[in-house]
């Protein structure tokens, strides 16, 4: 008997051990990011192209980075609100005006939320818009050149955060203020914030053909913080939704004082109604001062214009245009599903995720079921507009995107995870950890009627030990998940530039065929362009010297210049005569108080050199252009201010 018990016990122990082993094996093979099938999913063979473009904001780098998915490879960092010495952006004479503002030259900003232009509710891949948070600006990046071609400053705004999201046909790109301020700005006690400060929501019209931006109107709202926003789409096209916090209207210790109300609001704005009001002469023109900077691809040059007035709209004067939807606990992301029915308020301090119904909202508005008003703006009843709540999905919801198959994906900052849940039933379907503390996420086309629900990119705020350490400052990290199946699967970690906030993505095929290879020389209308070596020259006008220079493999023309004097201001206008793909040339001058120029084929750029010392000073090509790149160099002779050295130049022969 004992013997039997012993063998049974041994058998059971054996079973436990076996199953134990089995379990651990199973979980290993499931979660291991090194499993071969996972590696294959992100492997893009040498010479092959990625399936998607991802435009990931640089946050405090002021830039926009361009990645490929699923590989996570970085292709380009586009300077938007920050000077970039590599590309001479904000350093050369042509692009300096792009960073002009009503406060003067501001060479940095905090670039937050890229959004790709849309046609009929689908991503069209023409432009990316992105907001500068600090000195409020909206920029437009042209996706045929991957360059910033327009920046408009937003007056009456501060902390331009609930921006830069586009409506379904890119009728408008919308910019909301995060910090309410006195409008117009004036000297007043900070403690008098409540009731006196205002928040502006700015609707910038986008001209359909060239994308030129112009402020159509500014809605002057109560002094809350307008955090994020998204357009209605499909059935809710014509509306725009903004999350708010600090409805307490506190001006100090906001972490406590702005977290007191049980519910803040989502502001629903019927912009079609306001547009109609404005088109019929409504609104008040108000003095303002803001810069509008436009880069012209034909002249390769930007101009900055200061605009002096802006049309403002008081919401109370357009009845039925603005309503407030109570939403729990300082909501951050304000996300609209592809059908346009559901508006997700990601209450970052709430235990639940609140989803409003557009249909129910319209119904409540029609029946005038108001719970009260805030400065005259009707507040709807929470229960009347609520579609449902996702119960206890995680801690600290920030941002939700959609896969177009009826599922939503929400980031949870505090519990550091992405949670997949179902629209309509509000049940949680899956959760995956993020490393660590995820901020935002992106599904290609996620802010449109047609998401491509194959991948989600999570952008994490904290990286710690995920990569080889690089001292106290470590890279930020993005993570790629496969969402094509029932369960999400972590595929890849990849480092990012600056601090990504939002990102935008779309299939590469929407953009790739339109990407330019060069600028045709015959279309170069730069006033200082030199289109052949025969036309190169050096012209003196007082103490200003203009050098009309060309570059082609592998020489500058001219490459010897004499007659420049100490105290001159020498403008090098350099044209790249190449007409071949991927043959840029660079140029830099010893002692020039600026960056190099990096000039694309067919383009003209200008740098200023102010020689301070007599001598013979070399310049050279900075981009390894050809086998004779090292020979691509030249000299400028600088004489004393009172010298008589004649102004002469040459290529291939001596100056006599």
């Amino acid at each position, binding site marked *: 008997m004992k013997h039997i018990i012993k063998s049974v016990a041994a058998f059971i122990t054996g079973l436990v051990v076996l199953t134990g082993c089995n379990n651990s094996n199973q979980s290993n093979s499931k979660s291991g990011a090194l499993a071969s099938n996972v590696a294959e999913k992100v492997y893009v063979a040498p010479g092959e192209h990625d399936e998607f473009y991802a435009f990931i904001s640089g946050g405090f780098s002021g830039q926009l980075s361009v990645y490929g998915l699923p590989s996570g490879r970085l292709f380009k960092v586009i300077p938007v609100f920050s000077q970039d010495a590599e590309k001479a952006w904000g350093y050369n004479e042509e692009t300096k005006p792009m960073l002009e503002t009503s406060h003067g030259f501001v060479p940095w900003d905090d670039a937050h939320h890229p959004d790709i232009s849309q046609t009929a509710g689908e991503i069209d891949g023409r432009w990316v818009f992105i907001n500068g948070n600090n000195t409020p600006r909206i920029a437009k990046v042209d996706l045929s050149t991957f360059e910033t071609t327009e920046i408009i400053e937003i007056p009456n705004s501060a902390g331009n955060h609930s921006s830069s999201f586009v409506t379904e046909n890119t009728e408008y790109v919308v910019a909301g203020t995060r910090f309410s301020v006195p409008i117009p700005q004036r000297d007043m006690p900070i403690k008098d914030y409540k009731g006196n400060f205002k928040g502006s929501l700015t609707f910038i019209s986008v001209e359909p053909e060239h994308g030129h931006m112009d402020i159509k109107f500014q809605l002057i709202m109560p002094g809350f913080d307008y955090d994020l926003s998204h357009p209605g789409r499909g059935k809710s096209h014509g509306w725009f939704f903004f999350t708010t916090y600090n409805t307490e209207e506190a001006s100090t210790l906001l972490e406590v004082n702005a977290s007191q109300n049980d519910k803040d609001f989502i502001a629903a704005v019927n912009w079609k109604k306001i547009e109609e009001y404005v088109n019929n002469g409504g609104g008040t023109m108000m003095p303002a001062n803001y810069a509008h900077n436009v880069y012209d691809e034909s002249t390769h040059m930007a101009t900055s214009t200061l605009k002096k007035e802006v049309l403002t709209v008081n919401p109370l004067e357009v009845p039925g245009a603005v309503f407030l939807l109570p939403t729990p606990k300082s909501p951050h992301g304000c996300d609209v599903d592809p059908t346009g029915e559901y508006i997700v308020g990601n209450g970052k301090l709430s235990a639940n995720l609140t989803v409003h119904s557009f249909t129910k909202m319209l119904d409540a508005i029609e029946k005038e079921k108001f719970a009260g008003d805030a400065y005259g703006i009707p507040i709807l009843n929470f229960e009347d507009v609520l579609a449902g709540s996702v119960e206890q999905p995680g801690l600290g919801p920030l941002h939700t995107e959609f896969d177009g198959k009826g599922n939503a994906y929400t980031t949870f900052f505090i519990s550091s995870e992405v949670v997949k849940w179902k629209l309509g039933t509000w049940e949680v379907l899956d959760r995956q950890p993020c490393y660590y503390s995820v901020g935002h996420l992106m599904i290609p086309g996620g802010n449109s009627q047609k998401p491509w629900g194959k991948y989600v990119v999570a952008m994490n705020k904290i990286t710690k030990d995920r990569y080889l350490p690089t001292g106290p400052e470590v890279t930020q990290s993005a993570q790629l998940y496969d969402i094509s199946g029932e369960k999400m699967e972590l595929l890849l970690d990849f480092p990012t530039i600056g601090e990504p906030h939002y990102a935008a993505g779309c299939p590469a095929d929407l953009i790739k065929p339109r990407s330019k290879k060069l600028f045709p020389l015959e279309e170069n209308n730069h006033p200082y362009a030199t289109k052949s070596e025969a036309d190169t020259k050096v012209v003196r006008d007082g103490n200003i010297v203009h050098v009309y220079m060309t570059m082609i493999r592998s020489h500058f023309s001219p490459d010897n210049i004499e007659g420049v004097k100490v105290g001159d201001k020498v403008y090098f206008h350099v044209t790249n005569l190449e*007409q071949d793909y991927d043959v840029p040339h660079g140029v830099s001058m010893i002692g020039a108080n600026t960056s190099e120029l990096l000039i694309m084929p067919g383009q003209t750029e200008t740098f200023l050199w102010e020689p301070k010392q007599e001598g013979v000073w070399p310049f050279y090509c900075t981009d390894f252009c050809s086998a004779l790149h090292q020979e691509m160099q030249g000299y400028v002779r600088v004489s004393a201010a009172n010298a008589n050295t004649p102004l002469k130049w040459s290529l291939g022969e001596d100056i006599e």
Partner: protein
Amino acid sequence: MKKPNIIMLLAAILPLGLFLFPLWKITLEAPQYPTPLGMYIYINDFADANPHDIKNINLMNHYVGMKYIPEAIPEFKIFPAGILITTVIGLIIAFKGNYKWFLYWFILMIVLSSAGLYDFYLWEHDYGHNLDPRAIMKFTNPDGSQMGFQPPLFGTKDILNFRAHSYPRLGAYFLALGIGTSLIAYLIGKKNHKKYSDV
């Protein structure tokens, strides 16, 4: 109009395709050129296969001292005139001549085309061998003689980092078809003549 004359009429017209389509194409492949550089040779022009190709071929070739491909060469005037004249002769023959003239036209075209090809070869040879003595890079053959960079007249050849292809294009096929058709016109004409003279 008799059948052989109709065929001869066709033969005389076909070479006019040279005014519509390129005669020849030279293509240069290299690792740095995923889209190869290419040049179409028309009867009256050199043309880029893709925009700026000739400019970029010139830029490449200047390293080894080759001359720039000229904007125009005398052949661009002579060749079109030659084709027009032979077409007119062909038409006259088609309307007025008998089959023996078809053969003479055929021989004329063979001679002129061969002369044209030889002229093309001479130009290529000069282009590939008459190099600037101050060339940036000088290459020699294993026997010590100066390396030439002549593209092949017909076929494929490796030249330094490039693989050069040189092949006739649609215009040349029109010409060849025209010449061939004149021979057919002759043969049918001859056969018919025999038939009738036998009777």
